[in-house]
C-alpha cells in the first residue's frame, strides 16, 4: 500500500503561531520558565526540556525535530489553521496539547471513559483521546480556548463560575464543552435529562449538582 499525498496539505496555511489565549505570559509558560530557572542551577538537561515546553517559542513546524513516520498534518482549531508534523498514531488530544501548545483540553483516562478531553468536531462533542489527529484534516475543531469571544466568556463558562461548577477544575474544560454541545441536542427539559446528557463527563470532586444548576441556568436563559 502506498501512501498518497493528501491534496489538502497543499492548502494555503498560515505559518504564524497563535498567540497564547491570555497574552504572552500564561500560567503554564510562567511555571515552565520558573522550572527552567530552578533546574538550570542543578541539572542542565532538565532546563532544556522545560524551555522547549514554553509556548513563546515553539519550533516552527517545518523545522520541527524529525520524527520517524511523521507526516504533515493541517488542523483547523478555533478557526485557525495549524500545520504540524505528526505520526499517524498521535491522537487529536495529544496533537492539541503536545504539538500545538493548547493545554486547555485535558487528558484524564485517555480511554474515552472520563470525558476530560471533550472537544467539538464540526460542532459535535467527541472524545479527542479516541481519535487520530490525522483523521481530522477536513474538520472544524473547537476547544475550550475557542469559546470566549471578544473577551466575553461563553454563557456556559459564566454559569459554571456563578454556580461553582467545579472544585479542582481538571474536568471543567470537558464538562463545559459537553454542556455547550448539549444546548443543541434533543434532550428533555428536566434535571435528569441533563444528568444523562452529561454522563460522559466524570468529576472526581463531585461538583455534579452545581454543574446541573449551571447547565439549566443557561438553558432557561436561551
Amino acid at each position, binding site marked *: *500500500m502506498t*501512501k*498518497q499525498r*493528501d491534496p489538502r496539505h497543499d492548502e494555503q496555511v498560515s505559518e504564524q503561531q497563535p498567540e497564547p489565549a491570555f497574552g504572552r505570559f500564561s500560567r503554564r509558560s510562567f511555571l515552565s520558565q520558573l522550572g527552567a530557572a530552578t533546574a538550570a542551577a542543578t541539572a542542565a538537561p532538565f532546563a532544556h526540556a522545560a524551555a522547549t515546553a514554553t509556548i513563546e517559542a515553539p519550533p516552527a513546524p517545518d523545522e520541527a525535530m524529525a520524527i520517524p*513516520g511523521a507526516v504533515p498534518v493541517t488542523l483547523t482549531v478555533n478557526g485557525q489553521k495549524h500545520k504540524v508534523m505528526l*505520526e*499517524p*498514531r498521535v*491522537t487529536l488530544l495529544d496533537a492539541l496539547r503536545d504539538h500545538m501548545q493548547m493545554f486547555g483540553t485535558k487528558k484524564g483516562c*485517555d*480511554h*474515552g471513559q472520563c*470525558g476530560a478531553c*471533550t472537544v467539538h*468536531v464540526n460542532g*459535535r*462533542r*467527541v*472524545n479527542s*483521546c*479516541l*481519535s*487520530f489527529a*490525522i*483523521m481530522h484534516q477536513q474538520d472544524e475543531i473547537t476547544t475550550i480556548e475557542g469559546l470566549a469571544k471578544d473577551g466575553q466568556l461563553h454563557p456556559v463558562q459564566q454559569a459554571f463560575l456563578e454556580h461553582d461548577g467545579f472544585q479542582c477544575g481538571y474536568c471543567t474544560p470537558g464538562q463545559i464543552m*459537553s454542556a455547550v*454541545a*448539549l444546548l443543541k*441536542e*434533543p434532550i428533555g427539559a428536566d434535571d435528569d435529562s441533563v*444528568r*444523562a*446528557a452529561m*454522563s*460522559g*463527563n466524570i468529576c472526581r470532586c463531585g461538583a455534579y449538582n452545581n454543574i446541573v444548576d449551571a447547565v439549566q441556568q443557561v438553558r432557561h436563559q436561551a
Partner: protein
Amino acid sequence: MEVFRYSQAQSVDNAIKAGGKFIAGGTTLVDLMKLNVEKPQALVDINGLKLDKVEATPEGGLKIGALVRNSDLAHHPEVQSRYAVLSQALLSGASPQLRNMATTGGNLLQRTRCYYFRDTAYVCNKRQPGSGCSAIDGYNRIHAVLGGSDQCVATHPSDMAVAMTALEATVYTQGPKGSRSIALNDFYLLPGNTPDKENVLEPGELITHVTIPALAAGTKSYYIKLRDRAQYEFALSSAAVIARVNGKKIEQVRVALGGVGTRPWRAKEAESALEGHEANPVNFRKAADAALAGAKPLKDNAFKVELAKRAIVRALEVATQTV
C-alpha cells in the same frame, strides 16, 4: 501503541484493496490499540466513504449506512417513530460523545469488555488463541451465562446489535470475493474452540450497510438495560422485545438478550413459548424461564440468570402494554 501505516479510502473498492484494518469512529479500535490488544500494521480510514445515509427500502424497511453515527441513528425520526427499540438501545449505550463518534458498522464489531481480554498481563484465548482463559476460574461477574465454551465466556457488549437481532436485521458486505448479505442472527459466531473468530466476516470484507425490515401495523417494541450505573455502563442484562398483540393474544414476538451471552442472543425458546398465547404475567415468566433454561452460570455471575429473566418479563410487559 505500535506504529502503523495510515491511508484514506476514497471508495469501497479502494478500501478493500488497501489491505488494512478499517477505522471509522475508532472508539473501540483506538482504545484497544492503546492497550496493545489490537496491533494493526495498517489502518484504512473509511470515513470518506459515502455510507452515512438512512434511507427507506422499497420493502418499507430502513437501509442504514455503515457510517451512520449512533447518535444520528438514535435520533432519526423514522427510527424513533417506527423502531423505538433501536433508538432506546442506542441511547442506552456509551456516552453522548462516544455516540457521536461510533458508527453502525463499528458498533456491530465491538470487542468484549472482558477485563482479561483487555489486559495483556493475562492469558486470553480470544486475544491469543490457545493461551488459556483467565475468566473461567477468575473474577467473572460480568461474563456470559449463555453460549460460553471451555475456552471463552466473554460477553458481546453491543446494545444496538441486540435490538437489531430482535428486528431481524441483515448485514450487507463487500469484500475481495464480492458482495453478500448475511442475516444478523447468522453473523455472530459462538466462541467454541475459536473465540478469536467472532463473526463470519473474512479478511478485507467491509460492512457497507444494514437493513431492518418493516414491522406490521400495531407492532410495539421496547429495550430495557440493567447495569451497575444509571448511565454510561455496559449491560449486566438487557432485553429487546418486539411484539404484536391482537386483543390479548400475542400474534408475533421477537426477544433478544444482551449482557448475558457470548453474542447478541436471540431467545427463540421464549418466542415459541409466547406466540399464540395470552399476554399475561404467567406466560411472560414461562417464556423467561425458557430463554434461560440453558444458562450455565459461573462462580460470580449466577445473579444474571434471574436478572435476565426479569429483564425479559419487564420488556414484554411494556411492549405488550400489559402494565
